[in-house]
């Protein structure tokens, strides 16, 4: 899933300062799971903004709140047509994709990001998420025992460890495991160390050029997305 964290309240207040009627818009998918922008966080932020406004006025605001199933899906954004009719700005607690999808759907409406989108990751324990995928478009997890060196090695290198790890930890962060030591141990366990002995050439950053677009095979086969 996509993992994000809410922006500091002061930053949110600076962004909304020019707008009177603000819709705080949550997202019911990734942002709900990572506790950054689901229904609960929308409600908390709503209260926090109201309290902050009482303590130190920063323009006059009225807030409304709503959470859609997925902000990145145009289908669900249709439900917003009525909600945005009488507001001045949307404060989106969707990820960066959600913010842009809402902005594209409502071109006359300012859409403000309420979270910082951080990475693609998984839940490691309650309240802790770890990055696991760089969305590089060229998955080699077969070669590395299911551990991604692009994401988990701070240098993203492909041919084995640098010389910087101590006690199995990364030179850049003593709390972080060295990805290449994890990869070595896992390949050893699988009896596949020969995969680490192979040479891997420089990455192809053109695998899918930025901004990337992916068309489902069904669509391309049927020619539905031509032009």
């Amino acid at each position, binding site marked *: 899933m996509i993992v994000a964290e809410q922006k500091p309240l002061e930053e949110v207040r600076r962004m909304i300062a020019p707008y009177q009627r603000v819709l705080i818009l949550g997202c019911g998918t990734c942002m709900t799971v990572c506790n950054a922008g689901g229904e609960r966080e929308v409600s908390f932020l709503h209260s926090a903004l109201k309290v902050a406004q009482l303590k130190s006025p920063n323009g006059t605001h009225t807030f409304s709140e709503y959470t859609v199933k997925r902000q990145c899906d145009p289908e669900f954004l249709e439900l917003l047509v009525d909600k945005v009719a009488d507001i001045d700005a949307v404060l989106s607690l969707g990820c960066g994709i959600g913010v842009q999808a809402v902005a594209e759907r409502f071109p006359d409406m300012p859409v403000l990001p309420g979270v910082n989108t951080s990475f693609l990751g998984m839940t490691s324990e309650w309240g802790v998420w770890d990055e696991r995928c760089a969305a590089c478009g060229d998955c080699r997890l077969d070669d590395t025992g299911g551990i991604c060196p692009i994401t988990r090695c701070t240098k993203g290198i492909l*041919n084995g460890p*640098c*010389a*910087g*790890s101590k006690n199995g930890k*990364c030179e*850049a962060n003593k709390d972080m495991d060295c990805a290449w030591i994890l990869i070595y141990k896992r390949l050893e366990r699988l009896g596949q*160390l020969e995969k680490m*002995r192979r040479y891997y050439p420089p990455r192809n950053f053109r695998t899918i050029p930025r901004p990337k677009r992916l068309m489902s095979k069904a669509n391309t086969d049927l020619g539905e997305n031509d032009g």
Partner: protein
Amino acid sequence: MANSLFEEKLDSGKFLVTTEIGPPKGTDISEMVHYIDLLKDKVDVINVTDHQSSVMRFPSLGGCLLIKERGGEPMLQVTCRDRNRLAIQADLLLAYQRGITNVLCLTGDSIDVGDHKEAKPVFDLDSVQLLRVIRTMESGMDIGGNELKGAPKFCIGASVHPEADFIEPQLIKFEKKVAAGAQFFQTQSIFNLDSLRRFMQYASQFNVKILAGIILLASARMAQFMNDNVPGIMVPQPTINELASVEKGKGLQKGIEIAAGLIKTIKEENLCHGVHIMAIGKEGIVPDILAAAGLVGVQP
């Protein structure tokens, strides 16, 4: 014909002594020039570090040009941290064209340990790929598959960490570097000669020259600092204790003694093909280390 004077020496069988200079942060090169003049006739090659510890400095290529101008033998250090494959290949073309033909290929320290922590880490290549990039360029092509008008020729090497606390993956990478064309290795700092002996037992099966990295420790505090902050350095506790045992102000003398002692044993026992002395900010002390190790007058 050899691609460099250093390559000739690599094949000569003599005990090699190399050292390195960290360029200045700024445009005042007077101290670096002083060190170049002091060292150029005492060692077989002078490396110039490439933003060592990710601290922005005068570039390695600039330092190597100075060494060349002053009649020394330079070693260009190239890390993959700051330049993508275009910039690295371009630097190599310039280096070769100006007579700088020894290259040490390194991954590069993490941006996070340096003084520009918010910079974008590049790592478009890694050290193994960099070695292969150079061999490709030597064949007359860039790695985009385009023909070069004039191909370079280099003597290339890399680094290895014989004292890594988890050695197996390091050895796999070492072998990949050998297969990629590395002719010599300047190792990470050695403190324990038993680990060097073990490493050489293994490494002697490969046709490459190994130069043991020797670091000058100026005090117990510096040793501890390096353990905590410098990637790839693990000063063992007995060495730290030894440095701490001397009276105040005598730490550097002790450090010279330790470094010289290691060099002397390595040479006497013929443990490997030479040493690479890293004085880290105290380049002016290198002649004292050489003298204490009994290497004066035999160089180059």
